[in-house]
Structures are given as structure tokens and as C-alpha cells.
């Protein structure tokens, strides 16, 4: 006889099949007739098997595709040409492979046309999705495109053109943006650490570095600030890609008074 199981206690072993349980009860000595009777319920209760769509060759092809996917997970294909979208979906196993040397976040500054100075600008109104963490689109933009002038120029144009619609910490019109990376040292292992809070308008900590990644071109600042002061000059003022990230505007200087 099988040992009765304790009710309500989970077991790592699978439940015994019903037929086995039935035959475990005391029964008379089996005869051919009894065998026939016990076989019928077994045949009737044989569990149906749900199958995937299509005939066997289709399902075999699906197995082959699954194997290819597993191989791509192990050996990421070079993301070139037509295979790029496929490679993208298999490039997902590189999870924290490297140690951080500094804690980073990306920040923005806007050039105030009125105060003629760079001021910290809050990117969250422009990128509201998961705005306070590293999954924000702005932080991802900084991570992926930090050296890409074309993309950052487009960002500058977007921020400048939408500035009037958002409360971003910079009052009045802006002529352009600059983007920098805030790099804070990582505390020694085991030392006491402070609770991290993302504050894009907080002053840069004294122990942090702030390498400049991009700055709107001087010509762009002049043009945008002129448009802001003289709305009638808006026609034909479309921002064109200039030598962004090359010229710098010192704080306190007047970009449109320069030659």
C-alpha cells in the first residue's frame, strides 16, 4: 500500500497517476475480467495533448528556428545589413558586464538670452517617461549618442523650439543648449553611502567632474536669441546644422555682439 500523503504539503514529486492510486486499494486477486475493467478507464482518461499549429514539418521548422535563436543568444551576430533587426533582439544578455568607474548622469544647460549665461535646465518635461531614473529617454540619449553631433544638434533644436511650452527651470527664451556628463566618484567598498536622488537642477557637487559633450554653435545662439528678441525675424530663421560643439560661449558674454 502506498503511504498516505499529508494534505496541504507541497511535494517535489509529481502526483501519482490516478490509475496507480486506484490499483493501490485492496482488490481481489486479479483475473482477466478485472484487467479488462481497469484498462477501460485508463484508455478513457488518457490526457489529450494540445499541439501547436500546422503539420509536423512546420513544427520541425519552428524547432530549427528556436535552435537558431539560442545560438544567436550565445554568439551575437554582427549587426550589419538585413540581419541588424534580428541581431538586435538577441543582443540582450550583456547585463552589467563591467564595473562602473564613476557614477554618471547626463545634464543639460540652456543659454538664457536675457541673462546671457548658461543655466541648468531640467530635461524631465521634455522626456517625461521614467523621467527620474536611468531609463529616461534623455539619459539613454546621452548614453548612446554622447559623441554624435548630428543627434545632439537635433536635440538642441528640439529643446529650443519647445522651451516656451515647458517649465524647465530657465526663465525666458534660450538660444541653445549644452550637454555635459556629471561624473561622481564611487565610494570605497564598505563605506557609508548617501541615498541617491536625481536632481537635475542641483548644483554640481564639488567632487564631481563635468566633461562637456555638446554645445550649440555660437551662430545658433545668436540666431535663436535674435528670433526671441525680434519675433518678426522668425521667418527664415530655421536652425541649420552649424559647427556645434566647436565654439564655446563664455558665461556672461553677449553672443550677438561678437563678430
Amino acid at each position, binding site marked *: 500500500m502506498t503511504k498516505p500523503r499529508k494534505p496541504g504539503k*507541497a511535494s*517535489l514529486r509529481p502526483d501519482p497517476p490516478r490509475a496507480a492510486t486506484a490499483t493501490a486499494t485492496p482488490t481481489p486477486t486479479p483475473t482477466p475480467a478485472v484487467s479488462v475493467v481497469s484498462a477501460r478507464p485508463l484508455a478513457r482518461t488518457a*490526457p489529450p495533448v494540445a499541439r501547436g499549429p500546422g503539420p509536423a514539418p512546420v513544427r520541425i521548422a519552428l524547432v530549427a528556428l528556436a535552435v537558431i535563436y539560442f545560438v544567436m*543568444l550565445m554568439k551575437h551576430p554582427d549587426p550589419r545589413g538585413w540581419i541588424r533587426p534580428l541581431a538586435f533582439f538577441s543582443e540582450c544578455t550583456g547585463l552589467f558586464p563591467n564595473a562602473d568607474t564613476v557614477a554618471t548622469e547626463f545634464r543639460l544647460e540652456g543659454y538664457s538670452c536675457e541673462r546671457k549665461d548658461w543655466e541648468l535646465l531640467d530635461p524631465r518635461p521634455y522626456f*517625461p517617461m521614467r523621467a527620474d531614473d*536611468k531609463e529616461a*529617454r534623455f539619459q539613454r540619449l546621452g548614453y548612446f549618442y554622447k559623441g554624435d553631433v548630428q543627434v545632439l544638434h537635433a536635440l538642441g533644436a528640439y529643446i529650443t523650439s519647445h522651451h516656451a511650452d515647458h517649465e524647465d527651470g530657465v526663465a525666458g527664451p534660450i538660444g541653445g543648449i549644452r550637454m555635459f556628463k556629471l561624473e561622481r566618484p564611487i565610494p570605497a567598498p564598505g563605506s557609508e553611502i548617501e541615498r541617491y536622488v536625481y536632481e537635475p537642477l542641483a548644483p554640481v557637487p564639488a567632487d564631481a567632474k563635468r566633461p562637456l559633450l555638446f554645445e550649440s554653435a555660437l551662430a545658433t545662439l545668436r540666431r535663436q536669441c535674435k528670433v526671441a528678441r525680434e519675433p518678426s525675424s522668425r521667418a527664415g530663421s530655421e536652425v541649420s546644422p552649424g559647427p556645434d560643439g566647436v565654439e564655446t560661449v563664455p558665461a556672461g558674454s553677449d553672443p550677438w555682439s561678437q563678430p
Partner: protein
Amino acid sequence: MSDPRGFTGWIDDRVMAIFAPQPIVRLEVIRILASLAIVGFMLARIIHADDWLSTDSFRVPAKPDDWRQPASFSGLPLGLAWTVAITLGVAGLATAAGAFTRIASGVFFVLLTYVALADRLSAFTVSKIGPVIALVLFLTPSGSRWSVDAWRRKRRDPSYQPPELVSGGCVRFFQVMLPVFYCSSGLRKAVGDWLPGRATYSPYVLWTNLHDSYQTPVSWFLANHLPAFSWTVMQLVTLAFEVFAPIWFALRWTRPYATGWALAMHLMIGLMFGPVIWFALLMIALLAGSYLPETWLRRALR
């Protein structure tokens, strides 16, 4: 007694065992939990569909042959962006509920694929494995039990008995995917900074990732209370688990421990690295459906 068919017979038996029918409860648990985890991840994006997909948001200029852009899609008109986002959420929830599962999971797959390719800035690991999971749910008979579809069919035909088993590949896919994923991830870590003896080795990889917006109250508390060496211990155990995951999950006697460790690891990842919680929940869903005892799963769905 030795098999008279010899080694070939032994191989045949192993292959047949791989594709032998499996309890459908495993597939259904994955359908329910994984779909919910993916929708949970997407929810933060869905509620900002304008920032995510529309022309009203900042769109990265198209850059042909750029490794960062697997494909280039223009932004959608605002109304269409909201339609896509809401449809994605509804399709995911319908898949989890098993309502019109074949259609819902198909739509879920297509839209997950689109949003992953349309905005590289908001694509993460869940964005990449989500479409694969949805595709498998679409191609398998998921939704045959513990679903709205099964309930509707039973109402139409009271004699209908939903299946107990599903063809093996439908479940084996997930059971194989997990150790392959871990192994690949472990190898990436090993050639990164995780493996002692390498020039780039750092004993504090985990510690260095606790000082930005991934930090949670739990990780902040642990960072201030655990001794420094504990981060190295966790790092090495994780590396050993991941690199050799195919062995841990293949051997019958190590499998329960591997499952337990993986569940604990993802629980800690979810608690310690804030935004990564949905990835952790997705992996927990796959682990639960693939490797927890069948009786536990049946009891949970009863």
C-alpha cells in the same frame, strides 16, 4: 539490462524524452505571468505614448547603418501613437487572461516588435525578449486551459475536457532558453570585469552599480550594512551560476537548487536595482513556469 539497440537507441530515447508531451500548466503559467510582467514593464511607456512613439516627442534622426538603430521608423501621429500603446496593453492583458489568445498574442507580438524597433532609447532587455515570448505564445496552444477561451468553450460544449498536456517543444523552449540566456550572460560577464585573473577584473562590480538611479532603499540599506567582501562573494557565486547554468539545470539533482538560486537572485535584482524590477519579474515568471514542481503550479491555478 543493457539496451539491445545500443547507443543509437539510447540517443533515440533521449530525443524522444525531450519532445515528449509536457504538462500544459507550465505553458499556461508562463502565458499568465510573463505577459503580465511584460505589460507591467510597458505600462510606464504606455502612459507616456506621446513621449514614446509620437512625432510630438524628440525623435533621433535616422542614421543608416548605425549600430544603435536596428531600424528606422518615423514618429506616429499623436492619435495613432496612443492607439498603438493602448492596443499593446490590451493585447498583453488579453493574452494573460487567455481571451482570444491566438489573436491577442499575435497582436502582442507584432506591437512589441514594433515598439522595440521604433524607439531605441526606451528599449531594454524586456523589450528584446518580450516579442520572442509573445511569438512563442502565439505559435503554441497557450490559452487552452485556465483561460477565458477555455471557459467560453466549456460553456458552449459542457462535455469539453481541456488538455492536460502540450507537445514537448512548447515547454522545452522556455526550459532551454533560460540556461542558454544565463550562460551567455555569464560569459559576457567573464570576459568583462567579473572573472578573477583577468586584467580587467574588479571584485566590486556589484558595488559600483549601486550609486545612481538604480539604487533602491533596499540596495542603499545593504550597501551601508553588508561587509565589503560580501559583494565579491555574491559576484563570484552569480558568475559560477550563470556560466554553468546549462549543467545546473540539466542535472536532475542540481535543478531544484539552481531554480531556487535563480529565483532568489532575480528577487534580489528586483529589490536592489529599481527599474530592473520588470526584467526580474519576467525571469521569475519564466523560471516558475519552467522549473517549479507541476503540483505547485496546479495548486496555484486551482
